[in-house]
C-alpha cells in the first residue's frame, strides 16, 4: 500500500554511493597489466559448440494446481502470503497489451464486493498490512504481509480481492489512466535507465510475446475495456497456474483455510501461450531519441541457458565477477567507473534482472522460459557513449580470452558464498525462491549455487563462459538526445579516443587505445532510431 514517503525525499535523502575504489595511486598488488584481449574468435581453449541460431522455448515445469509451499517460523509475528500465478504479460491478447498488469492492479487495489477501494484501504491501514500485485512477462505475484494480531481479518481481505473482486468501472479508469501515465511519462520521459532496459527487451524479443512493455502499449491500454479485465482474470488467475506460498507463524489450520478458500478460483482457464523460438541474430541497435543530458546503454543477448542447466552457475559466477549488480567489486565497475570516472556504475547479468525495491538483489518469481544475458552501462556523457560500450565489450572479451586469475577467482567465489545468503533473509524472498524452484526444477537453488561454487575452477568457469557468451550475438539499446550523431558513429566505427581531466597511468592509457579500437558488433543496416514519444505506442 502507499507509504507516506515523498518522492523528493526518496530522491534526495538517500544518495547512494553505489561504489568505491581501486585505481592505483601507488603500485597496486601484483596484478600485471591486462594482456590485450585477442578477438574472441581466436579461441585457444576448448572448442565451443557452434552458436545456436535461435533459442527455442523449453517449457517451464508445471507444479500441481494450487500447490502449497510453507516456510513456517512460529517465532515471527508477521504472516506472509505469496500467491504466484504462472500468468503474465505473455498472456496479453494482441492489441490489448498491458491487460495482465492492469487486471492484477485492479484486483489488488480496486476493492471487493463488500468493500469499495477506499474502504479496503481503510481496513488495511491501521494494520500496516501490505497487499501488492506485481506482473512480469510470465508471472504475476499477489503478496501480502500482516501482523498476526490481524490475521483473520486480513485473510478475508486478501482472498476476497481475488475471489470477489469489485471490478469497479471508476477504479478501472483510474488505474488505466495511471498505467498510461507510467508509460508516457515514467518510462518514456523520466527514467532513461529503465527506458534503455525496456528498449533492449523490445529489440531482443521482437515479434515475441516478451517484446512489449509489461505495463502495456499506448494503443493496447486505450483499447482495454472493463469486460476484458473481468474475462482475463477468469482466464489466467486459475488454480492450474497457481502456487500458494505461506510463511511466518503458519499452522495447519491456516494452511487448510487458505487452500480451501482459493479452491473457489476457476480450476482452469486459457491454454498456456506457446512461445516461439527467438532468433539469436545479434548485431542490432535501437537508439531511442529523447532530450537528455546523457546516454543510457543496455546490451544483451537471448540465451538458452537458464537455472537448472549445468552451465548456469559457472556463467552466473563469471558475470557476477564481471559486474555484480550495484556492488563494488566487479571488473566493469572498477575499470569503467572507478579508474575512468565514466559513470555511476556498470554491471552484468546471467539472467534477466529486476532489482527488488530497497535492495540490490534480483526479484524472485520473474522466471522466464527464454532468458537473456545482459550488461548495463549507467548513463555516460554522450561523447563517451562509444568508448563506454567498447570498454564493456573489451572486458567481456577478457573473460572469454582467459580464465579469471586465481586470486580474483577466489575472492569472487568467497563473495558469492557470503552475499547469496543475504538474498534469502525475508519470508517473501524465501517463498519466492522456493516457488521459483518448482517451475525451474531447481530445489534448494541457493544451497545448490553455493555447493557448485565450491567445486568450480577458473578453467571450468572459463569453458562454460566460452560455451555461452558470444559478443557477436549481442544487441544494443541506447537512450540519447543526438540519435543521428550516435548512429553515424555506430556505422562509421571510427576509433574512440578519450581524454581525462586527471592524470592516468600509462598502462591505462595503453589499454584505452585498445578499447577505443575494439569494433562494435553492430551491423550498419540493423540500426534503428525510435523517438521516445512513440516507443511502445502499439
Amino acid at each position: 500500500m502507499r507509504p507516506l514517503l515523498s518522492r523528493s525525499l526518496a530522491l534526495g535523502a538517500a544518495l547512494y554511493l553505489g561504489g568505491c575504489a581501486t585505481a592505483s595511486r601507488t603500485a597496486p598488488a601484483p596484478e600485471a597489466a591486462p594482456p590485450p584481449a585477442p578477438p574472441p574468435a581466436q579461441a585457444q581453449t576448448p572448442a565451443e559448440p557452434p552458436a545456436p541460431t535461435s533459442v527455442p522455448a523449453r517449457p517451464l515445469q508445471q507444479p500441481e494446481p494450487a500447490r502449497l509451499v510453507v516456510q513456517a517460523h512460529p517465532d515471527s509475528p508477521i504472516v506472509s502470503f505469496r500467491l504466484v500465478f504462472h500468468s503474465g504479460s505473455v498472456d496479453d491478447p494482441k492489441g490489448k497489451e498491458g491487460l495482465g498488469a492492469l487486471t492484477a492492479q485492479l484486483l489488488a487495489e480496486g476493492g471487493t464486493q463488500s468493500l469499495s477501494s477506499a474502504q479496503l484501504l481503510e481496513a488495511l491501514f491501521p494494520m500496516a498490512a501490505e497487499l501488492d500485485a506485481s506482473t512480469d512477462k510470465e508471472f504475476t505475484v499477489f503478496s501480502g504481509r500482516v501482523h498476526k494480531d490481524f490475521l483473520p481479518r486480513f485473510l478475508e481481505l486478501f482472498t476476497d480481492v481475488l475471489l470477489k473482486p469489485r471490478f469497479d468501472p471508476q477504479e478501472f479508469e483510474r488505474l488505466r489512466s495511471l498505467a498510461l501515465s507510467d508509460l508516457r511519462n515514467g518510462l518514456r520521459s523520466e527514467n532513461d535507465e529503465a527506458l534503455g532496459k525496456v528498449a533492449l527487451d523490445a529489440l531482443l524479443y521482437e515479434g515475441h510475446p516478451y517484446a512489449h512493455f509489461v505495463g502495456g502499449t499506448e494503443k493496447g491500454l486505450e483499447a482495454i475495456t472493463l469486460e476484458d479485465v473481468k474475462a482475463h482474470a477468469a482466464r489466467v488467475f486459475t488454480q492450474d497456474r497457481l502456487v500458494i506460498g505461506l510463511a511466518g507463524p503458519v499452522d495447519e489450520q491456516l494452511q487448510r483455510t487458505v487452500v480451501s478458500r482459493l479452491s473457489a478460483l476457476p480450476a482452469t482457464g486459457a491454454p498456456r501461450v506457446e512461445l516461439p523460438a527467438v532468433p539469436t541474430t545479434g548485431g542490432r541497435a535501437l537508439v531511442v531519441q529523447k532530450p537528455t543530458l546523457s546516454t543510457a546503454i543496455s546490451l544483451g543477448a537471448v540465451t538458452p541457458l537458464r537455472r537448472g542447466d549445468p552451465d548456469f552457475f559457472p556463467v552466473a559466477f563469471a558475470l557476477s565477477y564481471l559486474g555484480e549488480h550495484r556492488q563494488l567489486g566487479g571488473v566493469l565497475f572498477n575499470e569503467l567507473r572507478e579508474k575512468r570516472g565514466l559513470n555511476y556504475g556498470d554491471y552484468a547479468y546471467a539472467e534477466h534482472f529486476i532489482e527488488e525495491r530497497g535492495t540490490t538483489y534480483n526479484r524472485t518469481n520473474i522466471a522466464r522460459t527464454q532468458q537473456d544475458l545482459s550488461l548495463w552501462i549507467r548513463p555516460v556523457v554522450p561523447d563517451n557513449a562509444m568508448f563506454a560500450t567498447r570498454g564493456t565489450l573489451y572486458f567481456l572479451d577478457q573473460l572469454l580470452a582467459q580464465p579469471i586469475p586465481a586470486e580474483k577467482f577466489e575472492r569472487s567465489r568467497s563473495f558469492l558464498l557470503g552475499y547469496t545468503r543475504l538474498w534469502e533473509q525475508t519470508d517473501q524472498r524465501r517463498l519466492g525462491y522456493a516457488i521459483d524452484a518448482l517451475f525451474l526444477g531447481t530445489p534448494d537453488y541457493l544451497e545448490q549455487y553455493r555447493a557448485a561454487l565450491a567445486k568450480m575452477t577458473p578453467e571450468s568457469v572459463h569453458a562454460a563462459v566460452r560455451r555461452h557468451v558470444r559478443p557477436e550475438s549481442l544487441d544494443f539499446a541506447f537512450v540519447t538526445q543526438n540519435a543521428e550523431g550516435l548512429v553515424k558513429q555506430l556505422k562509421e566505427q571510427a576509433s574512440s579516443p578519450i581524454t581525462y581531466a586527471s592524470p592516468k597511468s600509462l598502462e591505462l592509457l595503453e589499454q584505452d587505445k585498445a578499447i577505443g579500437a575494439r569494433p562494435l558488433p553492430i551491423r550498419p543496416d540493423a540500426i534503428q532510431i525510435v523517438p521516445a514519444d512513440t516507443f511502445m505506442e502499439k
Partner: protein
Amino acid sequence: MHHRWLIPLLLVLLGTALPVSAAEQPASPFFPYPMKVDRLPNGLTVIRVPFNSPGLIAYQTVVRVGSRNEVEPGRTGFAHFFEHMMFKGTKNFPEGEREKVIAAYGYDDNAFTSDDITVYHSYGPTAGLLKLVELEADRFRHLEYSEPSFQTEALAVLGEYHKNAALPWLKIEEELSRTAFTRHPYGHTTLGYYDDIKAMPQAYAYSRAFFERWYTPDNILLIIVGDFDDAALMAAVQKHYGPWEGKSASIQLPKEPPQKQERSVHIDWPQSTQPQLLYAWRTPAARLDTSDAAVQAVLGSYLVGSTSPLFKELVLDKQLAQDLDGSTMPHRDPHLFSVSATLQKEANRAAVRASLNAAVKELVTGKVDATRVEAIKSRTRYGLLMNMETAKDVAQQLSWYAGIYGTPDALARHVQKISEVKPGDLVAFARRYLTAANRTVLSLTPQQAGGQK
C-alpha cells in the same frame, strides 16, 4: 550563500545528553529489541542490538553530517561527494584493498547521504565482523586519497546527477529548497547544484578540510545489529576506535529568517510528465523534548494519506489527482512539512488547490477526526514491526533517527511521541504553522500535459 563563522560549538542543537559510558535498554512497545549503548571517552557512541539473524550482522556508521553542513558558496553536494571519497583508501589499506577484504566476506557494502546525515552500511557475515571493525576504524581515522583519484570520483558523482536529471523530482527539490530557504544550507539539495558538481574536481583541499571538520568520533554513532559476541565486538571497537582523536568543528549554521509572506515558484518542465502542485510550510526542528516531529508524522498521513478524505475525494472519487504525497521526515534544523498532488491534468489545478486549502482550513477551525488519528497511530506501531524483518532493516531505522536526533534511543522515543499525539495537537500545529504566510507553493507544468503527444 551568506554564512558566518562563530567560535562556540553549537553543533549539537538538541541538548540531549548522550549516555556517558554504558547503558542497557530493555525491549519496549516502541522498540521491540533490547539495546546496549556505550560511549567511549573520545565521544564515539556504540549501539548494539542482538537480533535473530544467525551468522549475519548489519554494521552502520552514522556521521552527523549532510548537505546542511555545506555552508560555503559553491560547495553544494560536498557531503555526498565526500561519502564517495571515504572509499578511496588509507595507508594501511590503499585504494581498493578494503573492498577486496569486504568482497571476500560477501558483504553488501555501501553508503548514503541525506541533508542531515551520512550513513555507511555493511551487511553480511558475522565471521567478518572483527575485521570490519578494523577496516572501518582505519578509514575513518586515516583516510588518504590522491588528487587524481578525487578528480575521477567527481565524474562518478556527475554520472549520478545525470541518472537522476530526467526525473522532475530533482528539479522540484532544487526549486523548492531554493525558494523556501534563503540562507540556511537546506536551500540546496543533497546532490548539489549541477554547476557545483561540475566544479568539484577543483576542490581537493576543501575535501580534506571537510573530513577533518566532521569526521570525528564525537560526531559519529556506530550501530551493530544481529548475531555477534558483544564482549569480543566491544574489545575490537575499543582497540581500533579508542585511540581516535578529534573534535567536530564549531560552525554555526546560518539561521533562516522567519518567513513573513507566501512564496511561490513555478517550473515549466520541457518534457512529458504529470503536472504537480506542492505546498510546503516552514516547521520547527525535530527535537525529543517537543512533539513537533511526531505531530508532523501523524499530520502527513492525516491530510494526504491513503485513508484521508482528500485522497478519497481527489484520487479515488473525482480523479482530479493521480496521487497525493507528503514529506514529514524529521530534520535537525527547522525544515518543511510538505504535501503534494500529482494532477491528472493541468486544468484540475485550481480545484485541487481549493480542496487542499479546505482540508487545512477544516483542521484549523478545530474539526478533527479522532478515529483516524488512532488509526494512524496503530499503523505507526505495526508499521515499525513490519519494517524490521532483517538485521539491516533494524540498523537502518536506528541510523536515521539516532543520526538526526543525536541520541541512541531516538527511534523508540520518536515512536513513543507519535503514540502520545492527540487530535487537538494536529489542530494546534495547523493553526500555528499551516498558514499562507508560512507557505511556499510550487507548481510544475509539463510542456505536453499528461504525456499526450
